[in-house]
């Protein structure tokens, strides 16, 4: 299917120069390799969530922090849809963190794309669980900034047995598109963490390209843990490995449920059972 068919004529309202434009382009490149009518997206609330209006595919613009369970629900309703969830770091790691851990456990067949700009941007720049210590925001004690250390979401994904874990650089459109395509082709829960600058609210953490390097697709958990620890999200020191950091084949939610397997084999959702 042609990439142009994914466009809408809705006017884009992201800040000029926001890397969300680049992520959208990567997503379109990746999706052009799939049947558009079988695609279904669920977007969260935040700057990233506006993707909903910019992609001409079916989907739900859900609640803040809940795109992941909503997307899981779509796979329960029709295991033959190709499901994508778009979330921000605030949405997933703060409001919706519990769902993330459980998605690792349920292993639904869907792809989660995280626009990690280390900031709650649409609410004008408060600290998220991946923001650096000292991040000065309007919600912190004046001058002292964010007190907490960020957590490492790749570590959480590994601990939650997520079956596909990848990290990308929003600025590298081609590589990001390739990884998203791999994530969609992975049968199971695929998690793609995209490092994105917010040029308005957390410029201190912008421009990390020099720290980044690409790794070969990996399926060794020990190596994945080492790769995860190379960057702690807290500073611009260390190295940031990009690529498929971990991938594992295991049975998915659809395989475990006789009812869903039947729908999958028939190529239908419940509505046609």
């Amino acid at each position, binding site marked *: 299917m042609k990439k142009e068919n994914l466009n809408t004529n809705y006017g884009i309202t992201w800040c000029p120069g926001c890397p969300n434009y680049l992520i959208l382009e990567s997503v379109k490149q990746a999706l052009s390799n799939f049947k558009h009518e079988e695609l279904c997206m669920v977007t969260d609330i935040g700057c990233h969530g506006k993707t909903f209006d910019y992609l001409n595919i079916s989907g739900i613009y859900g609640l803040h922090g809940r795109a992941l369970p909503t997307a899981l629900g779509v796979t329960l309703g*029709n295991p033959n849809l190709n499901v994508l969830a778009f979330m921000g770091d605030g949405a997933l790691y703060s409001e919706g963190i519990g769902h993330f851990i459980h998605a690792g456990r349920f292993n639904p067949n869907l792809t989660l794309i995280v626009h990690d700009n280390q900031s709650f941007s649409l609410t004008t720049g408060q600290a998220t669980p991946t923001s650096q210590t000292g991040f000065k925001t309007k919600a912190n004690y004046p001058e002292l900034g964010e007190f907490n250390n960020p957590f490492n979401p790749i570590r959480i994904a590994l601990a939650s047995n997520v079956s596909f874990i990848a990290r990308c650089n929003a600025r590298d459109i081609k590589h990001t598109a390739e990884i998203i395509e791999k994530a969609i082709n992975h049968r199971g829960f695929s998690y793609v963490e995209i490092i994105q600058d917010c040029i308005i609210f957390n410029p201190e953490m912008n421009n990390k390209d020099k720290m980044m390097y690409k790794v070969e697709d990996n399926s060794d958990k020990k190596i994945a843990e080492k790769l995860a620890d190379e960057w702690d999200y807290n500073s611009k020191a260390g190295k940031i490995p990009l690529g498929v950091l971990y991938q594992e084949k295991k049975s998915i939610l659809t395989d475990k449920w006789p009812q869903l397997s039947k729908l999958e084999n028939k190529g239908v959702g419940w509505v046609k059972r």
Partner: protein
Amino acid sequence: MKLNILIGGKAGQGINKISEIVSEVLISYGYFTFNYRDYPSLIRGGHNFNILCFSDKRIGSIESKLDFIIAMDENTVNEHKKNLKKDGIIIDYKKFESLGRNLNIALSGALMKVLGFEEDVLLKIIQKEFNNEESILAAKKGYDSQERKFNLVKLKNQVKILSGSQAVSMGAINSKMDLFIAYPMTPATGLLHELASKQVESGHMVFQSENEVGAINQALGASFTGAKTMVGTSGGGYDLMTEGLSFQGMSEIPLVLYLCSRPGPGTGLPTYTMQNDLDIALRGGHGEAPRIVIAPGDPIECIEKTNEAFCLSEEFNCLSIILSDKHLAESEFSSDRKPNKILSVKVKRAVPGKGVVKATSYEHDKFGNTTEDAEIARVSADNRIAKYKKMKDYCKKFEMIKIFGNKNSKNLIIGWGSTKTVILDAIEGENFKFLQVIYMKPLSNEIKKEMLKAKNVILVEQNVTGQLGRLIREKTGLKIDKRILKYDGRPFTQDELKKELLKNIK
């Protein structure tokens, strides 16, 4: 004839089995039974009891005075002796202490003998239920320990036993529900278990979510694809779901929700009953959007109204709430009424898989695109309200209220939900008309007419503030001054309610 039997013991001793065995025999003889279950929130030990009331006429409640105490421990006798009638009988565990876990079977046998059943009736059911030598010996030992006091003759009634949970499950399956999503919470868990056990034969799916927030969002995701979807919970879980209910109102993804109340606020009395969640059922969730709230009053109505809820949700892409409580969900009712014909539930909306279909929690234009346009916002809000008017009209084809008792009486009782059957028992032979409200939203226009015809209007509810009374006042401008409210977590008994009702018409 009517007898009121208390069966008590520690959690885990198997008192429910006694109720089950005796009830099964009673209904096979054409008697009506009602079994109330009273248990604290613990798994082993403590004090649990059932009150099994049976009669040759329809019955749906218990009495406060007991004809029998069947005691599996000393505590049961001590707790309930004060309620035993003068000629009441205690059958206790003492003679059967050597039987261990077959004590409940022996006590079933003993009770069956006193009621006058032949030994082979007892042995047949024990064989069917357990089919082992020990159990049969225990049943015989119990049977032989007593003298016959009654002689129950066979009646012609065709009676079936059902709990509210079982009945809601039947209503959902009749509606060809595809998915049920829930997180465990008493007393809504009964439906989760019931539907889970029926997956193989009926083909639907039951998914236990990570929490209620997950459940409601998963349900909306699934329903978006065209799956007929239901969620189930109690008050606390419902609170967690309310953001999702509000999302439903904006996205207009059809959804059926089962809300089974227990006494709050907070964790409250988890295993007891109360009608204290009508307010949140009507309004839970931010913003203004239409919805349906239906409160069935007995299991047969649970079957019918759950079916109506699915129809309404698909017809109007709306939220339909089935409002129940612990007393209706977990008590075992008996009935000789057949449910109405099953309504077929049709999914007519566009679903993903073909063209582009969008649903959204933002205000949106007709293509599902996000908008903040003032004119579209106003028109969309008007459309949501206009839809509610259509829903209200459509509901008129269903029984939104029912009238019972003396149709010409000026003494009008208004009640809803699980108090229905006890009100019916309490007004038997007295000069009352009973108006049962079944549709709480929309509310029937008939209610005002009935109230204006009456001299005495009496509100009966199991909550502290009279939530239905407040709703009626809001919709009709009429205030109900006479109120019988109970809020100790225990259901009304028929004799106490009757006394209260009579006081209000003196």
